């Protein structure tokens, strides 16, 4: 069976699922960016647990209102949705406040305080939900895992548009508006809370406001997509974007994009991957996997990709750049060595010099693979000609070597002029710095030293 066979049965239902997932994920990613920067990532996770208590409370309230004939059973559902959002926001802010109070008054370390509060409140919510499950038709599994596959089936009126699209869309728009309107304040209090306070931005209002918005977003989203997806989407897309850019607006934009992309990738892979893998290991009858779970996994996949392949902070690019740098240094050392031998040969006709040079060249080939690679690259570039222990500088190679030796000796002269160091120390420092001096700096050094002809050891500085 082909990998994409399941996609041939694609329906509008699948499109709706992707849309709902993307909207929910994007709505979560917005507050997530600021949670990440404020180092409160786990706060979002904790709130998503404790919100359960708010949801249960909302069920109690709406149930009680119907029993007391305050509202009609017909309107119970809409009252309940509003109550759920409110309840979750209240419990979210409450758990943030309890955590902070435990830290302040009880001297409890911050992560322990967070852990104690969220496990206790979550356990309470779980207990209540189990105790009343028969009465209020609420399924803890459903709250936790969501039922994004079923979400498109519940539509609004005759429009055919799923209710979940409206809910997640509205939350996304609210979060976007808040982010744009409070951008300056959010940015300042995320990066420099002390400065934000001195500028009159109340730290407490920002903190609890963010917690409240996060809680409300989480509940609105996990009603339709489940809390797993929400926990993942809160932090993973912003963290991925954080690895790709240094600008906050770009980070927010990228995290929205990544959130949407994870939704698409997640649903497609939920339809295709499990079948393929299950068939290859011989487990029959597996057609798909939980879409919410796969969306979270897709976001994780994107994160790992960014961690490995990111242009600036990616592991591969960092290793590659280090390799290039080491290669450049190794080849420059080869060039410099050859140049110095040429220099000595021009100055004296000592025969031992030739044997010394040959020995040095032989040692190059037996040295590290890096030096061998460097020599190979230099030969390819035609800065060296010959082979094995019999190589010569070409004109281009000599030119490069001259610049290097010039850097080395100018730096030694500079150190001799400005620092009181034993002469033995100049060489080691210059050996490192020679690779990093650019032409502009060289010109400045030259000027500072009044265009010296020789270095402290009395050797000519090439032009």
């Amino acid at each position: 069976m082909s990998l994409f066979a399941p996609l041939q049965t694609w329906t509008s239902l699948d499109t709706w699922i992707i849309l709902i997932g993307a909207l929910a994920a994007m709505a979560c990613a917005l507050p997530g960016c600021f949670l990440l920067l404020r180092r409160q990532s786990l706060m979002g996770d904790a709130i998503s647990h404790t919100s359960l208590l708010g949801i249960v409370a909302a069920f109690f309230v709406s149930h009680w209102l119907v029993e007391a004939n305050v509202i009609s059973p017909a309107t119970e559902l809409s009252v309940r949705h509003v109550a759920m959002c409110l309840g979750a926001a209240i419990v979210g802010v409450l758990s943030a406040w309890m955590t902070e109070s435990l830290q302040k008054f009880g001297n409890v370390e911050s992560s322990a305080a967070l852990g104690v509060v969220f496990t206790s409140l979550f356990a309470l919510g779980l207990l209540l939900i189990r105790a009343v499950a028969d009465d209020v038709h609420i399924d803890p599994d459903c709250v936790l895992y969501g039922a994004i596959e079923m979400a498109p089936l519940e539509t609004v009126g005759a429009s055919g548009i799923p209710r979940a699209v409206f809910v997640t869309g509205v939350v996304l728009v609210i979060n976007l508006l808040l982010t744009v309107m409070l951008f300056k304040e959010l940015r300042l209090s995320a990066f420099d809370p002390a400065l934000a306070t001195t500028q009159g931005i109340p730290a407490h209002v920002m903190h609890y406001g963010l917690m409240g918005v996060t809680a409300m977003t989480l509940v609105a989203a996990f009603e339709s997509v489940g809390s797993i997806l929400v926990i993942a989407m809160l932090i993973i897309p912003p963290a991925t974007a954080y690895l790709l850019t240094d600008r906050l607006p770009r980070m927010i934009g990228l995290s929205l994009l990544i959130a949407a992309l994870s939704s698409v990738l997640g649903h497609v892979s939920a339809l295709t991957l499990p079948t393929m893998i299950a068939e290859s290991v011989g487990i029959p009858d597996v057609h798909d996997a939980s879409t919410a779970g796969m969306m979270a996994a897709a976001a994780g996949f994107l994160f790992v990709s960014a961690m490995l392949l990111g242009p600036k902070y990616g592991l591969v690019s960092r290793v590659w750049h280090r390799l290039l740098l080491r290669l450049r240094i190794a080849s420059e050392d080869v060039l410099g060595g050859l140049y110095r031998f040429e220099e000595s040969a021009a100055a004296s006709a000592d025969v031992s010099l030739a044997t010394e040079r040959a020995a040095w060249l032989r040692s190059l080939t037996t040295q590290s693979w890096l030096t061998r690679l460097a020599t190979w690259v230099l030969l390819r570039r035609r800065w060296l000609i010959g082979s094995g222990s019999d190589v010569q500088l070409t004109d281009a190679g000599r030119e490069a070597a001259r610049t290097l030796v010039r850097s080395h000796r100018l730096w030694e002269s500079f150190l001799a002029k400005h620092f009181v160091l034993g002469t033995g120390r100049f060489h080691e420092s210059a050996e490192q710095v020679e690779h990093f001096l650019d032409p502009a700096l060289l010109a400045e050094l030259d000027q500072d030293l009044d265009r010296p002809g020789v270095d402290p050891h009395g050797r000519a500085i090439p032009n």
Partner: protein
Amino acid sequence: MCDSSLLAVDSLWELFARAISLRDYNTRVVLGGTTMLGISGGLVGTFLVLRKRALAADVVSHAALPGIAVAFLLAERLAPGSGRSTSVLLFGAFASGLLGMAMTLAIRRWTRIKEDAALAIVLGLFFGLGMALFTVVQRTKTGNAAGLSNFIFGKAASMVASDVWLIGVVSVVIAMLCCGVFKEFSLLCFDEEFAAARGYRTMLLDWLLTLMAVTVTLIGLQSVGLLLVVALLLIPPTAARFWTNDLKVMSWLAAAIGGVSCAGGVVLSAAFPKLAAGAVIVLSGAGLFVVSLVFGKERGLWPKWSLQHQFEQRIGRSDLLRACYELLEPIHGSRETTQESLTKYEIDDLELLAMRQWPSGRFQKLVSSAVRERLLETNSTGGYQLTLRGAAEARDAVRRHRLWEIYLLTQTDLDPRLVDRGADGIEHVLDPQQLADLERQLDSHLPQGIPPSPHPIAGAAIN
């Protein structure tokens, strides 16, 4: 609902009695195993909390989920029917829990993402992946009955004797190991550099601690569930911290709290089958936590508050008595005040109030508590008079105040207008030894008895 619960009272009571009296073999077995689990969780958690690592256990438990699913699928594939064996599932959980731990370390080591976000990312990714795999498990033929979801919410009652034996034995081993390396672990928690300098392998110890935490987390999955198992490691030590500053006492107390809350949870959930064991265990722990938070001897709120209250009472009392003395002092003229002479004059409460800017409510409270303690007494005309004890204390208070004032005036460059306020703050914390020192130092400046005030007294000047 009401009817059914009324009808159920009899059988409920019977259930409760059965559970309490441990008549069921199964309850006894589960109780024993889970209590051991709580004890070892408290012991290991002590060190984990002190190292501020407790939330890592939450990540480990969530990360175990995909491992459980994969282990089930593979075991079913290789030997149908073996997938439900606890040891197979725990092995999978162990592998993927460690993988999750390794991934957080990798993210922290190789990217610029901070610890909290690294934990949140791994949690979201593994949990999502686990959910996706779980749906796959449920769609296989044997998956439905696998009861794997017990790992998520926990179900102590579902454990069979062999599971309990496994948990019990592992717990005992861990508790013994914890005692064995107690000294090394305490060094690791309080002064890692010192431990390293003493030649301990801190890296190895750290890994040992992590491994023990992972093990406790995973064997706790079945009874408490992966959403809440972190509470076993987190709540008992955090609660124990309120009672003591001694690590040894703290770890035993944590073990006791862990054991008691686990035992209580098992008994309660056996009595009321509707209550999820995991949630009840966590909530019993949370109850003990709240008790510790309020009453804990070393850091609890009540002892701290009452200490502060007593101190404020003492300050208020000595301020009041000093004001009485200073009010009566001018009446004596040039005569020396004695304990007896002070008791002879009536004190007008309005004049007394004018001596110091007390809020009137506080003033009333101070006066009535002084009357209650027989420092002041009401006379026949409704005014107040000092008792002998009150007069003695008043003389002491004035003496302390004025000694310090004279010290500030003669030995420091303080502005004379500020000495009154300076003395106000310090007079209450001078102990007898310091008073004697002060007297010796000020010998040349002191007249006999109580020195006169070096500055005009505010209230007296008004008269």
